[in-house]
């Protein structure tokens, strides 16, 4: 079997009012045997990702057997190193890699988790993730949490989305958001808090100290992602698990983050960390260091299905996996793209035993979403 074409298509759903900067980018890989594989990454900067995937990475893997996922990964990684490491390079490669694993699964008529050695569980808890806290009032954030509660979720994360360019802008308001959500949720419902790189070390410790006294499940990315030494200070100061990893791209980044920053939970993103091929090695590294994983995944479509397929294969992956469709459109719109959906119920996703990652494009719906873009 040979890869014959690689395309990247930004889409949107005509029914939804999502900003064009954060549309999904769908990667399709075709083969000479007629099997199509699909992958996905954020379409933020699709203008750059599309030529990278189609014109630069595509020609490097066309002609290869799509089941040689590691060979294809190595070919692109070494050749395009000046565009990376990380960011554009690992994200584009991640979307392609997922499409290749999808083909491999379809060719073998097996779900990806079977190709990976079998699932420890296929009934997987997911948590409701809601962001842009920096722009929201406590009531606005609470409304989002209530929406998740009504859908049956019992684990939540609120994200501030501050980033390093707005460090320590309004820590007191963040705590009002947290309090509003904590007071609404019963004590046994998990509530986590994501500063999205927005605090300095002492602010992070003070905020974390307060939240752990009120009931916090995990404290995510308190500091700018490059401050590994500071992360260790925060980790050592707090009892609550401190997590990080969505901004790490390669196994070497994860090695340094773990050995220097020592977060309690590691949170790799399947697209940004180079697909199943990249992420699988990161998971193994986490296993070696006895670090639980909670994958970062702000997508309900292909990336989520692929990430869950991999997550399912790790015995110690027992925490809820992130779930969000804030960046893609409503869940109905996202799932309308596929012949058969994968949807959560009461805070759990049941992985299907369909081949590949389990999602197959409905070509008419895909064409409509392409046209709507």
């Amino acid at each position, binding site marked *: 079997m040979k890869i014959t074409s690689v395309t990247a298509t930004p889409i949107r759903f005509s029914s939804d009012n999502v900003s064009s900067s954060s549309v999904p980018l769908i990667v399709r890989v075709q083969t000479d045997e007629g099997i199509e594989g699909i992958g996905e990454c954020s379409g933020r900067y699709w203008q750059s990702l599309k030529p*990278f995937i189609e*014109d630069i990475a595509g020609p490097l893997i066309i002609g290869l057997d799509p089941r040689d996922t590691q060979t294809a990964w*190595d070919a692109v990684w*070494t050749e395009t190193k*000046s565009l990376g490491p*990380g960011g*554009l390079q690992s994200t584009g490669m991640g979307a392609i890699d997922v499409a290749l694993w999808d083909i491999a699964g379809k060719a073998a008529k097996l779900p990806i988790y079977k190709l990976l050695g079998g699932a420890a569980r296929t009934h997987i808890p997911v948590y409701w993730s809601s962001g842009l806290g920096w722009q929201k009032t406590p009531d606005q954030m609470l409304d989002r949490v209530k929406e998740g509660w009504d859908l049956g979720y019992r684990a939540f994360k609120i994200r501030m989305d501050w980033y390093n360019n707005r460090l320590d802008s309004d820590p007191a308001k963040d705590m009002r958001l947290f309090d509003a959500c904590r007071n609404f949720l019963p004590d046994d419902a998990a509530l986590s808090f994501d500063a999205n790189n927005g605090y300095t070390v002492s602010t992070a410790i003070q905020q974390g100290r307060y939240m752990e006294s009120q009931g916090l499940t995990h404290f995510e990315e308190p500091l700018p992602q490059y401050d590994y030494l500071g992360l260790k200070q925060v980790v050592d100061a707090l009892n609550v698990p401190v997590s990080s990893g969505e901004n790490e791209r390669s196994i070497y980044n994860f090695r340094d983050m773990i050995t220097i920053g020592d977060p309690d939970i590691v949170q790799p993103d399947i697209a940004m960390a180079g697909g199943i091929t990249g992420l699988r090695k990161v998971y193994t590294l986490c296993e070696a260091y006895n670090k639980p994983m909670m994958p970062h995944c702000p997508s309900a479509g292909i990336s989520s299905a692929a990430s869950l397929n991999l997550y399912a294969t790790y015995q110690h992956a027992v925490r809820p996996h992130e779930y969000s469709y804030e960046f893609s459109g409503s869940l109905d719109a996202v799932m309308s793209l596929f012949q058969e959906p994968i949807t959560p119920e009461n805070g759990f996703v049941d992985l299907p035993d369909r081949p590949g990652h389990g999602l197959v494009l409905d070509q008419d719906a895909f064409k409509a979403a392409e046209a709507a873009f």
Partner: protein
Amino acid sequence: MKITSVEAIPIESGPLLVRVRTDEGIEGIGETSPRYWEAMKPFIEGTLGDIVIGMDPRDTQLIWDAMFPPTKWIGPGGMQSICMGLIDVACWDIAAKSAGLPLYRYMNGAARTHLPVYWSTGVNWADGLSSVGGPSTPSAPLESMRQGREAGFTAFKLRLEWMNQRRDVDPVGDIERFKACQDVIGDDCHLAIDINNGYSVSTAIEQGLKFQDMGATHYEEPLPQYDYAGLKQVADALDMPVTSGELEHTLWEFRDLIESGGPDILQPDLMYVGGITPMRKIIALCEAFSKPILPHGPGAGVQNLNSLHVYSTQVNATLPHEYSLDFNNGLIEEAHRIYEEAAVPKDGFIDLPDRPGHGLVVVDEAVEAYRIDK
């Protein structure tokens, strides 16, 4: 003054040229390798262009800060920093031109403007650099070494271009290649050796001891770039300077490289780090750690000249700066054919031009004749 447009133009056997224009008619120029321009052009013109158009090009730090956080998903490093660097150097060019000053003076003055450069040349891989994992034997670039010697250079570097995917393939041959180059340039010249990430730790130490005995002036990137702990072993084991840094992108990567790897000399690349704005911070960091810098810059045009401008402002920057025609088919005319007046090395030195900005001005007709994006 306001930025009115940002254009990225790939030039045939030349650079990816970036032109930043302003409402006052002053244009700034940046350039980098044209490799993968297909992905860089839309990022520079669309994503970054949208951010910087309307800003005052003299606000170089503000512009850099405006570009970095919102494009973090494209980086850090690689494409993001290269493209930001292109806009950054073009803005510095504009700022210096609008002040009527050469760039080095706009950056508060050159310690020297007569700067030594070394001739850098790489092996020719029969199967190209793109091969994955396949061992093949590179030939020593003796012709290029001869060309450099005839041009009056007295310092040289041989790049073996092994890369991580061909590790420890032919160490014995590397010694022979080094010796062959030494024979061509003669005893009175310096020769450094660049492994380009191609050894494991013990190979790097064994080979390093041999290169050291043969008089190599520095030992560059012996290990894969991410192996800081291994780099420290190599740097500790050898007496000659071990160097690294061309693949680090941000201030904090340099922090980690210095703290964990302990190389003797740091080699930031002006484009890889994201332009003049971060380069100055990285140089200050090197100063704090008392590390000499030897900028990476295997080119001959604006990229090289900009790096020389920054380098000239450092009082302790006395080592020869990199210079290479490898990416212009060995032809200086190709490196300069889109510019009005070039900065050409003579007897191993480049004199910084005292024209405003970095000193290279684009010839529109030449750009149109050689652009490959039409």
